[in-house]
């Protein structure tokens, strides 16, 4: 019986074959991601309330987007809050304010993080009204 390997089964051809399969799989993955993102509304301009579309900044920012890793300084700037508004309304005594992360403040003062983020969002929402 002839056990010789076929002429076309060289190392180079195997690499080319694997690259073709990998290209096709990656392309399929890309197209399915775009399809999923489109259906989820990431490319739709109506995702944000109308008031934000006329904003001078390119990126609208909602109160619900506030996260624990953000700092007070950042919230002051993106929401246009007075420098000491959050300090007074939430009775923050820490000398590092406003250059202090929300989660770090909650941790230092033994406050439940989820409750704290809700109170921050309420304080910002109260000012915007």
């Amino acid at each position: 019986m002839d056990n010789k390997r076929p002429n076309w089964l060289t190392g180079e051809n195997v690499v080319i074959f694997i690259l073709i399969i990998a290209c096709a799989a990656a392309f399929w993955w890309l197209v399915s991601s775009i399809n999923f993102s489109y259906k989820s509304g990431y490319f739709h301009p109506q995702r944000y309330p109308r008031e934000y579309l006329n904003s001078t900044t390119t990126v609208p920012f909602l109160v619900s987007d506030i996260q624990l890793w953000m700092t007070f300084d950042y919230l002051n700037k993106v929401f246009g809050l007075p420098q000491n508004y959050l300090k007074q309304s939430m009775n923050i005594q820490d000398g590092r304010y406003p250059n202090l992360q929300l989660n770090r403040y909650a941790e230092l003062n033994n406050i439940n993080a989820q409750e704290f983020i809700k109170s921050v969002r309420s304080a910002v929402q109260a000012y915007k009204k």
Partner: protein
Amino acid sequence: MDVILQQILSFILLYKYLALFGVAFLASLALPFPSDSAIVAASAFAGQGYFNIGLVILIASLGNISGDYIGYWVSRIYGRPILYKIGLHKVLDSKVFTWIESEVRVHSGVVVLLSRLNVFVTLTVNIVAGLSRMSSKLFLLYIVIGETIQVIIIASIGYFFGSNWQTIYGIFGKFTLVLFLFAALMFALAHKKAMERIIEKRQLSQK
């Protein structure tokens, strides 16, 4: 969003441009920092008015370029001695690696420029460029151009897409993967054709 990225974003909000430079620089030195995600996020912050987008692009580019250039020189000066010491001399002396080195030298511009789009390929090309002793001036020129273009592309994702940046950036990452696999396939096919021509010429000359 993963915990490491959250920590880095907090770090950037606290220490601003200095932190952005540090993250970009350390990521270019092969340390596991999500530099591209940090640049996209910093650009989103610029879109919200917290940073200046021009400064974000400049500082991030400088961080990447500095890290790449230092990585190149470390590889150039210490690469071979270290690899020989840890027993990888067979890899360095192999025909495949010699061929890769020669291809990087011949197509240095295209290889260095395109490699900036993917962090793993960037690090590999930096190391190979150093090992193959590519001209340092040429390497610097290509990384300045390549990194600036790369930072502008990813910064625009953050600046214009804002809080959707993670999704859009994920799609961009998949797109660059497809691009690289396709480029690798074209490269392999071109190499196969070149080898076939060489063999054919040899056979003809022997006749």
